[in-house]
């Protein structure tokens, strides 16, 4: 039986259209990354490990898209967005792989095979089922809230890697990737806000506790694919969140989601 969301995320496809158009112009120099060459000695070993694992992570979009499609149900506009997001993350994979190749640290067939063998869909489903604050929560809402955290986490990880990588040319590329991830973070917010316009007060009251539940038990995508644990790369992403960076995340997310506390308070006092 088809699952029918009770209301659409966006009234019109305009936001999706704008996202698509802006996305066409982000990497006009993509082809020029083909022959990058860097001195690996200048890049800390942990950053090389991060670059390799995050390249693989960006290549994992085929896993992630399946989960997005499931959670966005038959919301046509959010499905379009996921397809566009997938293409942008795949672009990141290509760029990051070019950097890895330039550092003589290319991915191997074993890496790709290990990634493809992952059971992300089931693991992510189990994770989301575990952290749901209400069994009836709209899965689109849950995915969008998670998306804000995941994408902002990526912004911070790429920013930190840019600061630590030791080669200005790589740093400049990583900062551009971080900017794209911020755009993805923002889209999740815009979609959440558009969706909430149609939600009941009771549904709106779930946003703040759901954000807290995810933040309190945050698992990034790499934790749901076994191969990342096999190569010791599960925590590479979050290991770049030092005290200052984690504080940035706390401040940003608290400020964004705190506006939804009022719905929870209203619901409690009703």
């Amino acid at each position, binding site marked *: 039986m088809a699952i029918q969301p009770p209301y659409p995320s966006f009234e019109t496809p305009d936001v999706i259209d704008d996202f698509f158009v802006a996305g066409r112009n982000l990497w006009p120099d993509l082809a020029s990354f083909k022959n990058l060459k860097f001195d690996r000695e200048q890049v800390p070993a942990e950053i090389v490990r991060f670059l390799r694992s995050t390249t693989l992570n960006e290549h994992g979009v085929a896993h992630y898209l399946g989960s997005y499609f499931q959670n966005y149900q038959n919301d046509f506009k959010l499905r379009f967005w996921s397809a566009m997001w997938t293409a942008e993350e795949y672009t990141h994979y290509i760029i990051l792989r070019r950097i890895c190749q330039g550092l003589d640290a290319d991915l191997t067939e074993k890496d790709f095979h290990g990634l493809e063998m992952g059971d992300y869909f089931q693991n992510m489903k189990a994770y989301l089922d575990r952290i749901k604050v209400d069994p009836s929560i709209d899965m689109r809402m849950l995915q969008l809230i998670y998306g804000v955290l995941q994408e902002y986490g990526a912004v911070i990880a790429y920013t930190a890697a840019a600061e630590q990588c030791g080669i200005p040319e790589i740093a400049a590329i990583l900062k551009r990737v971080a900017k794209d991830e911020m755009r993805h973070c923002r889209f999740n917010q815009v979609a959440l806000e558009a969706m909430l316009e149609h939600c009941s007060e009771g549904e709106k009251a779930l946003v703040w506790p759901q954000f807290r539940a995810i933040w*309190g038990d945050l698992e990034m995508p790499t934790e749901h694919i076994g191969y990342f644990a096999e190569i010791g790369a599960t925590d590479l992403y979050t290991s770049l969140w*030092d005290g200052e960076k984690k*504080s*940035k995340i*706390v401040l940003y*997310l608290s400020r964004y989601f*705190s506006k939804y506390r009022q719905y929870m308070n209203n619901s409690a006092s009703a």
Partner: protein
Amino acid sequence: MPSPSPPQRAEIVRRLAISLAELLRLESPDSIHAESDLRKDLGVDSLGLVDLVTVAEEDFSVRFSSSTDFSVIHTVGDVAGLIEEQLARTSAV
């Protein structure tokens, strides 16, 4: 009419203690002092930090600086100091 002067450190600690007691579901704020360690004494973890930031910014109408590093903030008094700093900046504007 002159604007009210910002609360002093002791008053900030007192108000923070009330908010923290509520957040942590303590019966009374009396056991929370300026020297109380957020993590060791009060069990404020990364989730608790989100609540603390939210409540502190709302209750005192301040915005912590984006360069704030909460990993070096250990006690309730440290948080009060940050709030005091922000309040002073706001009133100086």
